[in-house]
């Protein structure tokens, strides 16, 4: 199966929960190609299947049917060890609730993916990364000593430190106030624009989606609209349409 030059591919991905009469079809056959070096947003009302889609694309969940490729490798056939390696090298993840390890410092949290792989970050790159996320003076603090925004910055740095093929962000501003959220969005946008990082973001926030180069709208487990860059009012209008 060719990747069409895309970094992440999904082919007829279906996801069903439960069995028999209580079965729920979260995804009804979704196919998409994620372009490299772009910020792709996945939007939809609650229950649309957007989070499910993201989890499957990121290899956290297995589809009931269909195929997912990351950097050309079909992940459905990988065993746990290979999947683990894939996560180390090709996937970065930013969580809504930051998911930092509470007993490690900010710096240790950032380095963690590499430490697990038994590697160290290249010093120049590391310094650059820290500067970019703006955490210079907070490196030796524990998560409990950082604000929400700072914690998310740490999480982003952690996701970027391995220079992965694709970064998945799950409602990255969902737990932040609007101003801090905007800062985070700027950071994510910068990583794509300036460093060529591929980013897939799930969100329900129009403002967040407006930073994307491409917006995929999901409803009832299917892609209903595939648009390029949009402004927030248009995005809101489109969402209202879907919710009706």
């Amino acid at each position, binding site marked *: 199966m060719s990747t069409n030059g895309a970094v992440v591919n999904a082919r007829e991905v279906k996801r069903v929960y439960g069995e028999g009469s209580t079965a729920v079809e979260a995804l009804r056959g979704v196919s998409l190609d994620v372009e490299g070096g772009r910020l792709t947003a996945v939007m939809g009302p609650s229950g649309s299947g957007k989070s499910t889609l993201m989890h499957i694309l990121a290899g*956290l969940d297995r589809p009931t049917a269909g195929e997912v490729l990351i950097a050309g490798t079909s992940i459905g056939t990988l065993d746990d060890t290979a999947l683990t390696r894939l*996560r180390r090298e090709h996937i970065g993840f930013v969580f809504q609730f930051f998911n930092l390890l509470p007993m490690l410092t900010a710096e240790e949290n950032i380095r963690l*993916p590499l430490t*697990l792989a038994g590697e160290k970050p290249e010093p120049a790159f590391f310094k650059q990364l820290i500067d970019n996320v703006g955490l210079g003076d907070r490196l030796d603090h524990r998560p409990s000593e950082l604000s929400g925004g700072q914690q998310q910055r740490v999480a982003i740095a*952690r996701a970027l430190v391995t220079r992965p093929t694709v970064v998945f962000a799950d409602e990255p501003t969902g737990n932040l106030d609007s101003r801090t959220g905007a800062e985070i969005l700027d950071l994510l946008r910068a990583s794509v624009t300036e460093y060529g990082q591929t980013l897939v973001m799930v969100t329900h926030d129009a403002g967040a989606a407006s930073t994307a180069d491409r917006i995929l709208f999901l409803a009832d487990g299917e892609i209903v609209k595939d648009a390029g860059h949009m402004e927030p009012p248009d995005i809101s209008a489109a969402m209202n349409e879907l919710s009706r």
Partner: protein
Amino acid sequence: MTLVAIRGLLGRKLRATLTAIAVILGVAMISGTYVLTDTIQGAFDAIFSESYRGTNAVVTAKTAFEPTAEGDTGFVQATLPQSDLEKTKQIDGVAAALGGVAGEAQIIKKDGKVLTSGGAPSLGFSVDPSQPRFNSLTLAQGAWPKTNEVAIDEASYKKGDFQIGEGIQIASRGPAETMKLSGVVRFGALSSLGGATIAAFDLATAQRMFDKVGRLDQIRVAAETGVSTTQLIDNLESGLGPTVRVRSGEGQAEKDASGTNEFIGFLQKFLLAFAGIALFVGSFVIANTLSITIAQRTREFATIRTIGGSRRQVLGSVILEALVIGVVASVIGLLLGFLLARGLNALFDAVGFTLPKVGLVYKPRTVIVALLVGTLVTLLASLRPAFRATRVPPIAAVREGAALPEGRFARWRPYVAVLVAVAGFAALSYGLFRSGLGTTQVLLWMGVGALLIFFGVAMFASRIVVPLADAVSPVGTAMVAVFSVLFYPILFGYWLLRYGMFEGRAGIPKRIGAFLLGTLLTFFLLLPVVVLVMWLVGKLGWYRPEWPVERPGIIADKSSRGLARENAQRNPQRTASTASALMIGLALVTLVAVLAQGIRQTFLNSVDQQFVADYAITAQNNFSPLPIAVETTAEGVEGVTAASGIRFGQARIDNSTQTIGGVDADTPKVIHIDWVDGDNATTGQLGMDGAIVKEDWAKDRNLTVGSPVKLLTPTGKTLDMKIDGIFDEPTGGSPFGNVNISSEAFDANYEQPTNTYTFLNMRGGVTDENTARLNLALNDFPNAKVQDQQEFKDNQVAGLSAVLNILYVLLALSVIVSLFGIINTLALSVFERTRELGLLRAIGMTRRQTARMIRQESVVTALIGAVLGIVLGIALGGLLVARIDFIEFSLPVFTLIVVALAAIVVGIIAAILPARRASRLNVLEALQYE
């Protein structure tokens, strides 16, 4: 991952500590036991080698066989004729020789009672100060004893408040004599040999006192310079003939020590077994705590997996945490054990079992075993939770409340549990009922069986938690209510004190009144002082006393109780694991209680059946045999219509050493004998060659009346007896041996004959007058005790109670470990339910209700453990009773009730800290808790 593991531990120090305690206590017991027993061993080794310091060889008479454990007290070794001493002196290579005798010699206190402590012996021996090389005693004060004088050990001298030069009463084989106290002695440098007393006499006096006139127990020999010990022994053996046994000084010391060494070895294994039990319970606690912790860290583990951590890395991190806890806990336990050694020593002291000690002995083996065992147990206990941690799926990082996948074998769990338990019962039964197994094998099978049973029941318990919780909850509530009522005055008083001190809104008179009433209720606990200090400290600004506080109430309300029960039922697996830790300790306590009750009841039944006499005479310690002079004296008392002393000795029959007894014509008058073949006249007609035997013993050997029985006495005499009668012994035993000859025959063939019991009938039965007459007559024998049937029963059973208490104390250690287990679980589950608790508080649950809920949960869990433990203990006890011949099954109802109450107390205590924490949650923070 090392970083993650270590940091994880440091971040959760309190939790790690509580987990570690589970191991610390068990390891402490191990190291304490080793230190204690090594020290005792060292002390005894020193004593025995000191005793033969200047002696190259020791000559004793050959004894035909060695006594069994039960026959050891009162076993009489053969003696040498005094002429052997002269012979010895003439032998080549002998530089000097000294003959000596030893025996039992009681020192009588000024109030007429024997000076003794616990079961320690009253030692007496002859001493010859003219040959100091052979003398193990040193003179501390006064002079060495001359004819009819005595010197006693320093400890006894102080205890009895004696004066040198005064008369002092000493009792040995005959009636007590008054002798002049010539001096005070020490054994080497020791002023005391544990609780043993020493009375030293000159040779002639000693021989007379011990009924060994013209005889010697041993001859100590010193070699001429240039003569080797081997040469000396050879010369002595050839010179003295085949009736003697010659050993080197060290050899004799070893022989003397062997009995004690056996006992110490047994003591060591005994105590280590209890340490093992505590560690076993500890492993349950660790496994449980780790399981809960891991469940709570699901999001953390999932995140690690998401960013590329492998399963192995997760496993490694959990195991590393466990390893660190294990090592640190083992080290602390090791050091604590050293302290415990002193404690154990004090415990034995308190029960009257004083053991000699000369400074604590620390061997490398102690350190190695303690560290190894503690670490290993922790590691093993952590394996299952560690593997569970690896099963956390990465998706759990994003999905709230994602349940841990059950694992492939979860479905089979209950079946496996039943299988394991059944296998355990099978192993236990095999060990118990298979004939032909050695003691070690039996114990091994029993141990393995018990372990499997506990595991199986613990695994299965989660299935019955729900119905059990429903059942025990009302019981728990009722008992807690009872406790609350009992303690209400104190709790209320404490509240009153604080009301009086801190309630600014009330008027002064009211406050004074409250404070006074509170003082009245709690003064004996010094609580008024505590409250005053609180006030003072509050003024200084260090601490703000909490006020206002709700007035304490009594009845727990239904909603808290219902919630508590449901909480315990919510996660049956967790409740079961926690309860199981308590179950083990309580099952063992119940087992011990069942056995003890069985022993006690059966014994009492057999006494009821057989004891038809009016009086019994035994030694003060209830088990040592008494010289027959006691019986002779008692017989002569006015009003005695029948008197029979049951002789006690050992003989070798058919290559096995057995206990034999001696009976006479009066015996059936005082002891009811269930004749199978023979009648009450038989005992009087035994003559010098007749014997009556137990039915089972005869059946086993296919013997009947008329069959011959050959006995070998310790002195080497062969007695050809024939069976004149067969009797049936009740389940609880009888005063007789397997084979019983006539007292005449016994006295003719055994040296220094003794009676275990002497029974009497008197005209008029048991009356104050008769009792007084007997006591008067036996004044000269302070070691003899006159008892009626009830007193006899009480005395014999009392020894059992002492042993029982020691067992309970040792088992209490395991119960304490499980107590920490419950605290741990409760604290963790409170932490886990922070948001939920916040919600309950927000919708109107008071602090007190919250605390009560937590406490009720704890009590329900503890009671579940108690129910499981009691049922299991009774089952195990039943099995054991079925196996052991002389016990019947009897339910120790009182002890069981105490066990249940103890469980409730454990539950209440365990809940104190977690309940406080739960009730003090800041509602707002709790609601937002992630």
